[in-house]
């Protein structure tokens, strides 16, 4: 995926240059995201001024006046230009509905979403790797069949359904955990578990497939023939190689988890970026949607950059090449 990293990892200067190049490469990506989001939002019918006053007794004339006050009567290119000029200065604007800066709104909701995404990732990675490992080691036997089936069920089950089931079982029937809300660690167990499990399936599959592929390689077979004990063989030789594709999947899955957080936050009545952006879309709060999407996209792009770098670090060919 990034062969250049492999060649250059030994030298600090080239790594810095590589990182700079990658970070600069983010600029057109983010511009594209900003523009696409802007376009999509403005293509969808709806007048924020009308939504804003939909619970008032405003007359048609008063609604038109509010629209002008919000600067929404300007032409599309003009609004786009103003928007770009603003984000270049690092100003995400002011929410049409709350009247507060978009950055303040995001700062308020981001920690809860990060907490959920990180916890869910931990569940997904731990569970996914464990399941993949177990399945690969027991290839063709019952644990493999059970795990493969479970992974498929995990991938196929939508969070809004498994979330309700988990809530019913652990909060209503057993009474072990709070059903909804946030607070201490006990509030995180159900949402992070449900979200993590849904993502663990994908990780388990990739981990299993790549482990099996590695274990069939001649050098592993040769090692086994020389009588090396399976566990150390697995840990020392096979697992590291098999982790490579898995790391890529984990990076992608983090994006999936951020997306899943939208649903999970709603089901478990947690605060967070997901609910913020959904609400903003439903109200057509243009600056808030644009700002949140931009921040989310930046996060996702950065995570994938990190995975790419990690990939280079983990690749044994890279390490050997560096010496």
């Amino acid at each position, binding site marked *: 995926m990034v062969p250049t990293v492999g060649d250059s990892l030994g030298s600090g200067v080239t790594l810095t240059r590589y990182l700079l190049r990658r970070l600069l490469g983010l600029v057109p990506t983010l511009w594209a995201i900003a523009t696409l989001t802007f376009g999509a939002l403005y293509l*969808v*019918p*709806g*007048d*924020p001024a*009308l939504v*804003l*006053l*939909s*619970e*008032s*007794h*405003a*007359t*048609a*004339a*008063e609604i038109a006046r509010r629209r002008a*006050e919000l600067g929404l009567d300007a032409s599309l290119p003009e609004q786009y230009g103003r928007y770009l000029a603003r984000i270049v200065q690092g100003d995400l604007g002011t929410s049409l*509905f*709350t*009247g*507060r*800066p978009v950055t303040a709104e995001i700062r*308020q*909701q981001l920690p809860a979403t990060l907490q959920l995404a990180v916890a869910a990732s931990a569940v997904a990675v731990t569970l996914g790797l*464990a399941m993949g490992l*177990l399945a690969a*080691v027991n290839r063709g*036997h019952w*644990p493999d069949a059970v795990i493969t089936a479970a992974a498929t069920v995990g991938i196929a089950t939508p969070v*809004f359904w498994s979330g*309700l089931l988990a*809530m*019913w079982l*652990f*909060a*209503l029937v*057993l*009474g*072990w*955990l*709070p*059903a*909804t*809300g*946030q607070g201490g*660690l*006990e509030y995180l*167990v159900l949402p992070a578990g449900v979200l993590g499990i849904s993502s663990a399936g994908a990780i388990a599959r990739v981990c299993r497939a790549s482990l099996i592929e590695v274990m069939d390689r001649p050098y592993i077979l040769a090692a086994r023939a020389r009588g090396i004990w399976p*566990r150390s063989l697995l840990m020392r030789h096979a697992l590291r190689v098999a982790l490579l594709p898995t790391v890529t999947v984990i990076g992608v899955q983090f994006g999936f988890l951020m997306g899943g957080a939208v649903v999970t936050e709603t*089901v*478990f*009545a*947690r*605060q967070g970026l997901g*609910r913020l952006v959904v609400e903003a*879309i*439903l*109200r057509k*709060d243009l600056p808030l949607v644009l700002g949140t999407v931009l921040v989310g996209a930046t996060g996702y792009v950065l995570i994938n950059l990190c995975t790419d770098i990690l990939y280079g670090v983990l690749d044994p060919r890279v390490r050997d090449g560096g010496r």
Partner: protein
Amino acid sequence: MKHRNWSSWLFLLAVVISVTLVGCQSKAQPASLVYGLTLIPSGIDPHIHASSELGIPLRSVYDTLVYLDPDTGVFVPGLATEWTVSEDGRRYTFKLRTGVRFHDGSRFDAQAVKFNLERVLNPETGSQKARYMVGSLRQIEVPDELTVVLDLAEPYAPLLDSLSQVYLGMASPTAVQKWGNADYQFHQVGTGPYRLAEYVPGDHLTLTRYTDYDWGPSFLRAEGRNQVGEVVFRFYQDPATRAVALESGQAHVMGEIPPQDAARIEGRSDLALLPVPIPGQPLQLFINSTRPPTDELAVRRALIQAVDRAAVVQTVFGSWSPVADGPLTAVTMAHLGGFGDMYPYRPSVAAALLDQAGWVDPDGDGVRARDGRTLNISFYYMSWGMMPEVAQMVENAWRAVGFQVESQLVAYPAALEAARNGDHNVIPFNLSGTDPSMLDSFYTSGGGFNWSKVSDPDLDAWFQAASVSTQLAERITLYQRAQQRIMEQALVMPVRDYVNLNGVSRQMAGLRYDAQGWFPLLATLSVQE
């Protein structure tokens, strides 16, 4: 093989450990009352924001100049002890209560009233609702410390009703000035029975009792022991989780329980169901009187008579909601009913109306047509308030008498836009409120929400007259005349009177709601011994 045993045991161990860990987190007894809200308002400053949800907690934070007594429907003193309205209806003089202090210790007086109303009027405040509730209020005079005079360019009959609502609640000028318009919502200070302790958007809002409070009307006076000292509001947007939160003991009061969960709540010994009828408009389908084919009265009438509304309401909303009878719900002032007789469920009558208008189905394909045009209805609806369920049944009924229905489930902004542009033949909506003047913006030609696209000089004149009249009886007559016209013209198909199904823990006693129906009177709430 050895390794297989080892790994299987590890797997089992992991399962056991995780289950044990989970089991250790036992449920703690709640220290305060948890009240479930159903949507996250974009903001909660009542002077600025419009959500009815914000009033659920904040009705208890603010006092208003007057209150609408939920038992008698009469305006009673609040922060104003008495008031007079000039003969021409343009000057309101309020005498204010002495000894009232805001939660921050500052004094409530006439200057505070002036400050609050001027804040609402100021375009920079960006009010989404309050600004449109005060008619043509142009000046606030303060002849002395305890007298306020409101001067209007034109009489505005709903003013007292507006002044009784939380959107015109009296906030501490000190606090508003300290925090500014954007951040005041997190630090709101009123004179009501509860103070706002904390607000974390999307997570919770906490109220604590204001122990000095002793100036409210009788229905806000706390009596007896075991009063609730703290109320924590949490947000339960997903209807499916509301009953779960209540049943698991996480929440003690929950609004808008879905009808399919209501019977189960009602059947439990630890919970009670408290249905509260909401004044205002019912859930109703506005019928566009300018877009073909609903520009024809016969077609509009056929739409109404083709639908078994009682069956729709029973199926979708259960037995708790009355079938709507007219453009206002039965518990609203000036409500006029009897339209069940005007438009009984008669598919045969609907078919005959269409036949007479020339909409026939000679080719027998089930769809009527005239002059080569099919009888096509463009039906927009939104995803909330059980609208999709209602839409499905209504559509089937229309198809049965020969309509072709093109329905679209759209997001709220798109629905509002379509309705404004008149892209619809039919679109649902409802708005709650105590004063029938809410009908103005829906049925006058310049109304912001004139979705029937009606332009009837009589309706315009009646609404205008009702809005400036100082005689209650006259206003009621005018609004009833308007309702009669609206229904004769079949501008709307009323579906269901809104009833808020609240689930309440039986640990709580004395839960009541104000005249608006949405807002709990938390002051009288207590914990059962």
